[in-house]
């Protein structure tokens, strides 16, 4: 380390006790707390996924009992959605980068930020307790009246866990919105914000407005299950479709909670890899906001065969097509950004391009599901499973890992092995496609989801999928290895190892506790790359 940097110790060395981490108000340390926690849950959910693929490798239900299988896919869904995907990018990269990118010292409410992490952990404890006590078998969707009146598993523990973690989302969203509104540095106008910041703004709006509906819905499940209040069970005078409306009113926007941050990350990765301004900056901003807003109006496309009225389905269908427009705009703009670029294919860029490809496939197959007449045949099959994994795993997880690679030198001050990282990125892309592409075919042939055993004609496609899962698992374990290696043996990173633009690259790596020696002043828009 250069002697001059000793004047302001990095956030990593500013206190070395466990206590200094657990009571920290530093957004960067909180980001690390989250990163460690969500990585734990990612592998927990990943083990469940591995067990699912193991069971489905053969058509017979021969690895575990039907109940165990049902609990396994439920656990996989609950953990991956609420304890990994939704918090993933906002709480780690978002927490770490948002203040740095807008030239602030911290988020607006640092203590609330720490409290959000404790809420996350409290929710996590309930979920792990549920697993240890025997699990839950409702599916992550908690459909009533199964979840309220029929399931004999630990529904309440899970519901309480998700209820609590929801408040972590709400408070993070609130924190980010206030931060972006009030803490931008001199000259950082709204249309000079990096797209990652815009995506954090969009996602925060959705978290703040949609998550309370989830909390309310879960509270109603508790009321029906514990007190027998008839809300969703028709035997008590309730309506099971009411639950689905409430649930998807949150859970469809939740998909955009998962994918908007990924779009933000990828915009940063591509511009840095191409050393060029993003093409159509304003359209990228408008499409983020458009997706966030229209995302609230399409929930009914989950219910085309659920018993919803034909006319409601028609309206939800056209709205679902409309929300695909801003997503298409983003794909075209990323592609156009490559034009006349100075393109290097480092690991972050490979992840970013992988994201664009997989997101596009996920989006296009989403159009099949938005078309009511096709959805009838495809919904509740593996086609849907493949579709949302392309968006959430192919899309969000690729972007998350790409972002972790890109900002790793900034976060840790160390470089990782570029060769291993490229290998892992390519392996992930291939493994992902081998795992999930066959599921499109199985679904188009009618294979229902959430099946412990299935007819033998779907056997080959499932073998391919399970084989892909092995590659995918390896590609997720590899980064753990070379990242840990880099912490000790990695080359030290300079302030800006990629030659990237953005305020976060103007401070030291890792940054000092207060981020900047002097508050930076912004005089131009983002991605102001100049060609050599």
């Amino acid at each position: 380390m250069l002697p001059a940097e000793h004047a302001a110790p990095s956030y990593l060395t500013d206190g070395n006790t466990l206590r200094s981490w657990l009571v920290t108000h530093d957004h960067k340390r909180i980001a690390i707390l989250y990163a460690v926690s969500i990585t734990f849950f990612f592998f927990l959910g990943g083990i469940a996924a591995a067990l699912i693929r193991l069971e489905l490798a053969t058509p017979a239900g021969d690895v575990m009992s039907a109940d165990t299988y049902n609990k396994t896919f439920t656990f996989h869904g609950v953990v991956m959605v609420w304890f990994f995907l939704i918090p993933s990018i906002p709480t780690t990269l978002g927490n770490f980068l948002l203040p740095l990118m807008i030239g602030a010292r911290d988020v607006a409410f640092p203590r609330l930020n720490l409290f959000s992490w404790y809420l996350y952990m409290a929710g996590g404890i309930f979920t792990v307790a549920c697993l240890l006590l025997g699990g839950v078998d409702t599916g992550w969707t908690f459909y009533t009246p199964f979840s309220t009146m029929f399931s004999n598993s630990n529904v309440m523990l899970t519901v309480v866990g998700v209820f609590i973690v929801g408040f972590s989302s709400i408070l993070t969203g609130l924190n980010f919105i206030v931060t972006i509104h009030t803490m931008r540095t001199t000259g950082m106008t709204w249309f000079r914000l990096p797209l990652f910041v815009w995506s954090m703004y969009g996602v925060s709006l959705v978290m703040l407005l949609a998550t309370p509906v989830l909390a309310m819905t879960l509270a109603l499940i508790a009321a029906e299950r514990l007190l027998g209040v008839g809300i969703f069970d028709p035997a008590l005078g309730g309506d099971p479709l009411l639950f689905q409306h409430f649930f998807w009113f949150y859970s469809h926007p939740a998909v955009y909670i998962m994918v908007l941050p990924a779009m933000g990350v990828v915009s940063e990765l591509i511009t840095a890899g191409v050393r060029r301004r993003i093409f159509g900056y304003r359209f990228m901003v408008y499409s983020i906001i458009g997706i966030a807003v229209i995302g609230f109006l399409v929930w009914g496309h989950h219910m085309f065969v659920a018993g919803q009225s034909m006319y409601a389905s028609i309206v939800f269908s056209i709205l679902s097509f409309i929300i695909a427009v801003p997503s298409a705009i983003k794909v075209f703009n990323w592609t156009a950004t490559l034009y006349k670029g100075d393109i290097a294919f480092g690991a972050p860029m490979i992840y970013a391009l992988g994201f664009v490809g997989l997101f596009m496939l996920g989006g296009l197959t989403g159009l099949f599901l938005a078309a009511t007449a096709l959805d009838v045949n495809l919904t509740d099959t593996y086609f849907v499973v493949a579709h949302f994994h392309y968006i959430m795993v192919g899309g969000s997880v690729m972007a998350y890992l790409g972002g972790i690679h890109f900002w790793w030198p900034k976060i840790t001050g160390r470089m990782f092995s570029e060769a291993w990282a490229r290998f892992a990125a390519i392996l992930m892309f291939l493994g992902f496609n081998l795992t999930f592409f066959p599921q499109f075919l199985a679904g188009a042939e009618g294979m229902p989801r959430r099946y412990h055993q299935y007819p033998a004609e779907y056997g080959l496609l499932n073998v391919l999928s399970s084989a892909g899962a092995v590659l995918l698992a390896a590609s997720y374990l590899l980064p753990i290895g070379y990242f840990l290696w880099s912490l000790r043996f990695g080359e030290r990173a300079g302030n800006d190892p990629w030659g990237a633009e953005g305020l976060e690259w103007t401070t030291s790596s890792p940054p000092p506790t207060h981020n900047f020696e002097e508050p930076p002043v912004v005089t131009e828009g983002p991605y102001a790359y100049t060609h050599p």
Partner: protein
Amino acid sequence: MTFLPEASGFAPRIDGLFYAMLGLSALVVVAVFTTMLVFAIRFRRGRNVDRSGESHRDLGIELTWTLIPFALFVGIFVWSIRLWIDMRTPPGDATTIHVVGKQWMWEFEHPDGQREIDTLHLATGQPVRLVMISQDVIHDVSIPAFRVKQDVLPGRYTQMWFTPTRPGTYDLFCAEYCGTDHSRMGGVAVVQTPPEHARWLASHAGGSLAEQGRALFTRYGCAGCHDAGSSVHAPRLDGLYGSTVPLADGRQVLADERYLHDAITLPGSEVAAGYAPVMPSYKDRIDEADILALVAYLKVRGTDRETPHASR
């Protein structure tokens, strides 16, 4: 679809839309990937190539790739919706088969009283309307070879229709997760030629559903209050189906299958005007299969179709 047959009138139309969208998607994917590849090679770092200049036609380009996808989407939407409306509108000559789902089995009831479990016999060329209800949680009848699927709800009838076109035996799945044996809840749809089907129906004939309902009407004691000679002041049920019933709270409601079902399970919810809400709920005393028979009976009671063997 490589091994999934097209066995209903909808199947070729749905596959037509499917393949059209597949073609369109493939076109988009190839176009975008090719463009990315060309840019990636042409403008890779270290290659000496003209990188100068900013585009000044951004707005036009943005509008182009906003409006063209939008127009395409509207086109697909219209195509899909026309098909969708057909799929949701059963023709008048459709045979009604009642379906009861329960953890973890299917019960099918043909109009002439034939009942079967987990197997559904159908005839080619005969439109069929399935009227479905669940006894417990949400289930879903899915017959991939027909490209149809519909959730089956507790406490409420849902319906779907199709016309089988190809003889054969096809998978019938429960497609909505319903607990432990969800993956075993299913069976087959057996599509026969009309003569075969007629023979099958004849060899499995029982009393018609409405006749079964008439017997149940007596057995459950409904007649004690609702028959003409009763001393209890209860609504007369002759010719009730399809009429408009004024309710005690001032609303008017159409006496359809839903109304008759709810009047048995939740009699307090829609009390007919002029009557005291004295009827007890039969929710836990009659299962959905018997309610179907009762409703079938009420639909013909007091009409000229009430006479036995004329109920179809």
